[in-house]
């Protein structure tokens, strides 16, 4: 079952913040976040495992709320390089990773 991401798209000015949500209808074991720039391969950002941890990658961080079965990705003080499509991948302890439809982030100067 694929996770649901929201919003579908977001436009930011440099320095602004944004949150991308990833929700599942089933209990999650792990959540992965990847970023894909236009015409390129998805690139790994971080993995969060069951336990409600929070992780960071530069000024991009994420949280994982097991009870709510969701994860959120936080883009803080966005930079032009943050533009791209962000995918969450979820795993239900079955060793299969299912990706959401992606959230397109556009950061403008």
């Amino acid at each position, binding site marked *: 079952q*694929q996770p649901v991401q929201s919003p579908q798209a977001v436009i930011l000015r440099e320095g602004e913040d944004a949150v991308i949500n990833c929700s599942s209808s089933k209990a999650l*074991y*792990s959540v*992965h976040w*990847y970023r894909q720039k236009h015409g*390129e*391969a*998805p*690139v*790994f950002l971080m*993995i969060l*495992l069951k336990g409600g941890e929070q992780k960071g990658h530069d000024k991009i961080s994420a949280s994982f709320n097991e009870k709510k079965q969701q994860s959120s990705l936080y883009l803080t003080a966005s930079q032009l390089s943050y533009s791209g*499509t962000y*995918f969450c*991948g979820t*795993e239900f302890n079955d*060793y*299969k*990773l*299912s*990706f959401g*439809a*992606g959230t397109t982030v556009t950061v403008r100067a």
Partner: protein
Amino acid sequence: DTAVSQTPKYLVTQMGNDKSIKCEQNLGHDTMYWYKQDSKKFLKIMFSYNNKELIINETVPNRFSPKSPDKAHLNLHINSLELGDSAVYFCASSHPGVREKLFFGSGTQLSVL
């Protein structure tokens, strides 16, 4: 050196043809995958191999046949191509286990005319 390389980058072909996409990784990973990204950007897993053994085979038409000659290579052969097969196909690799990060190849844009 490219970590995960796949060829060709672009593939334009007629309906009914048979084509192959090759993938190689030099990261020493045991696990390799094929993902399909459609025009709406959904990334869907197709197959996963661990040390040449097929471990995930999602609901994919049997016109698609993966082959792993060794753990560094995973090729995808597609028979009798259809219009709906048009997509970007990504190869990826990781250490064993889905809780390891995936390293993706640069993708193969397949266009079936």
